[in-house]
């Protein structure tokens, strides 16, 4: 059993081992939808919601699978749960905010193939978190993802206005900035202990 207070786990997932910047999970949406601050925040919120739902479900599924002694089904059942949760969020957003639905575009169904969410489910199983720990882990990861996306979109909005050489423009400069951000986040190491 893992012994960490929910607060420690939250800080760890959010800052020290930030999902995007130090574990490299969810890079695709990080590069894809970090163009505008507005969209970035909403994408972060959608991911956070899916994370909470799938973390809760993964906790239940893990216990059922242990009970019936079928560990090889973990991966397959997790991915099915995540796909259904994303479908749910998609319908929800489509109904309540068609504008946001348009803005997120293809990246909304692609939350299914966002490694951050499957990674979350796998990590919480590996580390044997109990229910409260799992929830705070999911919340921390979600907040961390949103934070990374938000910082990145802020920088990219500035970058749009600056004079960048044509070969660096686009993905190359975004990755360089992500590298600097990642180094900055290394400064959080040792917090929350």
């Amino acid at each position, binding site marked *: 059993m893992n012994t960490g207070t929910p607060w420690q786990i939250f800080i760890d997932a959010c800052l020290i081992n930030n999902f995007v910047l130090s574990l490299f999970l969810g890079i*695709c949406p990080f590069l894809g939808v970090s163009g505008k601050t507005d969209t970035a925040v909403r994408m972060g919120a959608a991911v956070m919601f899916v994370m909470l739902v799938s973390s809760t479900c993964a906790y239940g599924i893990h216990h059922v699978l242990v009970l019936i002694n079928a560990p090889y089904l973990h*991966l397959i059942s997790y991915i099915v749960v995540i796909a259904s949760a994303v479908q749910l969020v998609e319908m929800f957003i489509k109904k309540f905010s068609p504008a946001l639905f348009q803005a997120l575009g293809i990246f909304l169904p692609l939350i299914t193939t966002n*490694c951050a969410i499957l990674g979350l489910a796998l990590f919480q199983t590996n580390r044997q978190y109990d229910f409260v720990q799992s929830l705070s882990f999911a919340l921390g990861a979600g907040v961390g993802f949103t934070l990374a996306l938000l910082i990145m979109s802020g920088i990219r909005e500035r970058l749009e206005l600056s004079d960048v050489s*044509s070969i*660096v423009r686009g993905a190359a400069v975004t*990755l360089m900035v992500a*590298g600097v951000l990642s180094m900055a986040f290394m400064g959080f190491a040792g917090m929350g202990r």
Partner: protein
Amino acid sequence: MTSERVAGKADKNVEVLIKGFWRDNPVFVMLLGMCPVLAVTNSVINALAMGMATTFVLFMSSTIVSLIRRLIPKQVRIASFILIIATFVTVVEYLIQAISLEIHKSLGAFISLIVVNCVILGRAEAFASKNPVGKSMLDALGVGVGFTFACLCLGFVRELLGAGTIAGVSVFGSSFEGWSIMILPGGAFFVLGAWLLLFNWLRERKGVPQT
């Protein structure tokens, strides 16, 4: 797209193979599947293992998807593709565990995360579900090798600069002090950024319009 439908011609098949490897390289050109490329390429061996595992899953799932492409209803195709991919990833995970426990430990959760590699789902959706088996297999092989090549590019630079070795063999001698940043997460972003820079530069020199 129409030219791709002409089956049975050797040069067309070679073209499909080469296209996935170079012109539409999944990592350097299409910017897909970045997560594993960045995360596990801190050494050449890890990069190679990751590339091979991904190629295997890509090849097998493209073959199966292409075989049953007429049987899958359109509405549930993505879910079916993911289930097929997840099955092969489970196979690969147990396979790697059996072959080398050490590699399994250093790749960790990233073997399971091959499921959510956009390259594989992307090829299943964009190519294998529309083309005959032979072509899909070639395409998968081309893209898989292209992906492995990209992993190796990163792994090579990061291991060389980070530890002064290539696949565990010392290059610069014992007096070389490794750049620890290359092994750390930040280095992965820098190296991939630098490679993209190089490829952009090459493309610009050739006069191909920017994407």
